[in-house]
C-alpha cells in the first residue's frame, strides 16, 4: 500500500519535520493575530467612524479573498512592485497574521458588544466601580468566550498552512511529494501510503485541538 516507504531511511522524520514547519508558522501567526486582534477589536468597539470604515474594508478583504491569493500577492507581488524580496516563510506569516488579526478582531469586537448592558448596570448597582466592574465581571466573561474561539483559530491556521507548499516551503505535503517522487519507481503504491499518512497527521494534530475548543465552549457557555 506504500506505507513501507515511510520506514525507509529518514522518510518519516522528513514528514515530521515538515509538520514542524507548518506548526511553527501557524503558532507564530496565531500569537501575532491574538495580540493585534485584541487591539483591533477594542478599537472597533469604540465606534469611531473612521476606524469603523477602515476596519470594515479590511475585514471584507479578508472575508472574500482566498488566503492563497493573498499569499501570491505578498510573495510574488511585493517583490515585483516594491522591489522587496520577502522570504517564503515570512510571506506566509504575514498573510496568516493579516487574516488571523481580522478574525480575532471581529471575535473580540463581537464579545465586547455582546455583554449585555445589564451586566454593567447590575455590577454598578452592587456598588462596584468601573475598574472593578471590568476586572471582575466583564473581562472574565470575555476571556471565557474568546479562549475556545482562539483555540479554534489555531486548527484553522494549521490546516491553512498546507497552502504554503505552493510558494515553495517544504511542509508536510511538500515533503510527502518529494518522498513520492524519490520512491515512485521502487514502490508504485507510494502515493496512497504517503498521502494517507499526511491526511492522518493533520487529523491527529487538529482533532484534539478542536475537541478541546469544543469542550471549553460547552463548559463555559
Amino acid at each position, binding site marked *: 500500500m506504500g506505507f513501507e516507504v515511510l520506514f525507509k531511511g529518514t522518510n518519516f522524520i522528513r514528514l515530521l519535520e515538515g509538520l514542524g514547519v507548518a506548526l511553527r508558522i501557524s503558532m507564530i501567526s496565531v500569537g501575532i493575530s491574538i495580540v493585534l486582534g485584541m487591539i483591533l477589536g477594542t478599537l472597533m468597539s469604540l465606534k469611531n467612524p473612521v476606524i469603523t470604515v477602515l476596519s470594515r474594508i479590511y475585514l471584507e478583504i479578508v*472575508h472574500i479573498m482566498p488566503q492563497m*491569493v493573498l499569499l501570491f500577492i505578498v510573495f510574488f507581488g511585493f517583490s*515585483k512592485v516594491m522591489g522587496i524580496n520577502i522570504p517564503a516563510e515570512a510571506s506566509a506569516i504575514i498573510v496568516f497574521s493579516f487574516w488571523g488579526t481580522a478574525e480575532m478582531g471581529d471575535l473580540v469586537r463581537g464579545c465586547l458588544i455582546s455583554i449585555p448592558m445589564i451586566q454593567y448596570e447590575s455590577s454598578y448597582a452592587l456598588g462596584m466601580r468601573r475598574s472593578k466592574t471590568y476586572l471582575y465581571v466583564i473581562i472574565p466573561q470575555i476571556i471565557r468566550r474568546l479562549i475556545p474561539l482562539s483555540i479554534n483559530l489555531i486548527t484553522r491556521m494549521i*490546516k491553512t498552512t*498546507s497552502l504554503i507548499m505552493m510558494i515553495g516551503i517544504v511542509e508536510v505535503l511538500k515533503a510527502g511529494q518529494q518522498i513520492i517522487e524519490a520512491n515512485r519507481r521502487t514502490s508504485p503504491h507510494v*502515493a496512497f501510503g504517503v498521502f494517507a499518512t499526511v491526511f492522518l497527521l*493533520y487529523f491527529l494534530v487538529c482533532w484534539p485541538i478542536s475537541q478541546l475548543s469544543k469542550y471549553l465552549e460547552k463548559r463555559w457557555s
Partner: protein
Amino acid sequence: MIDTDVITNYIPLFVDGFFLTVKIGWLGILLSFLIGIIASAVLHFKVPVLSAVVKVYVELFRNTPLLVQLFFIYYGLPVLGFHVSAEGCGIVGLGLLGGSYMTETIRSGLDAVPPSQTESAIALGMSRPQVFWMIILPQAFSTSVPALVANVIFLLKETSVFSAISLMDLMFTAKDLIGLYYDTTESLFLLVVFYIIILLPVSIAGTVIEKKARYKIFGS
C-alpha cells in the same frame, strides 16, 4: 505600473479560469448541501451505525485541509484503482469538505428547534418525515443562515487550491502567467478582480438573506 495591453490580452485566459472555478465551486457547494442535509438527518434521527459513520466522516474532514484531501483523492486513490478526473476530484473533494461543515451547521440548527415544535406537529398527526421536512428543517435553515452563508463563502475561497491538482482555474492561470511571462502585477490584479467578482456578490447577498431570514422568524 499596470500595462493595460497585457490586461486585455490576459482577460480571455482569466475568463476561462473563472468559469472553471465557478462551475466546480458551485457544483461542490451543491453536493455539500446534499451531504449536509442527509447526514444531519441521520444524526437527527439517531440512525444506528450510520450515525457513527457520519460522526467519523465529519471529524475527519473538518480536521484536515482541503489540499490534503484533494491530493489523497487525486493521487492516492488511483493506486487502489479508483480513477477520478481532475474536475470530478475537485467537485467531490469540495463537496466532502463542505458536507462536513454543512452537517455540523444544519445539525446545530436542528438541535436549536425546540422539541415542543416536533411534539405539536406530531400531535397534529404528522408523520416523522413530514415533521422533519415541513417543520424542523425549514426552521433549522432559517436559524443557521449566517453559518450556511459563511460556509458557502469559505468553500468558494477554498476553490483556490484546485490548481494544485492541475485544474486550469483562476489560480492556475495566474501562476502560469507569472511563471511564463513574469507579468506579475497584471496577473495578480486580474486574479483579485475575478475573485471579487465571484465572492463580493455572494457576500452582499448573504447579508441580505441573513436579514430576511432573521426578520421572518424573529421580527428584528
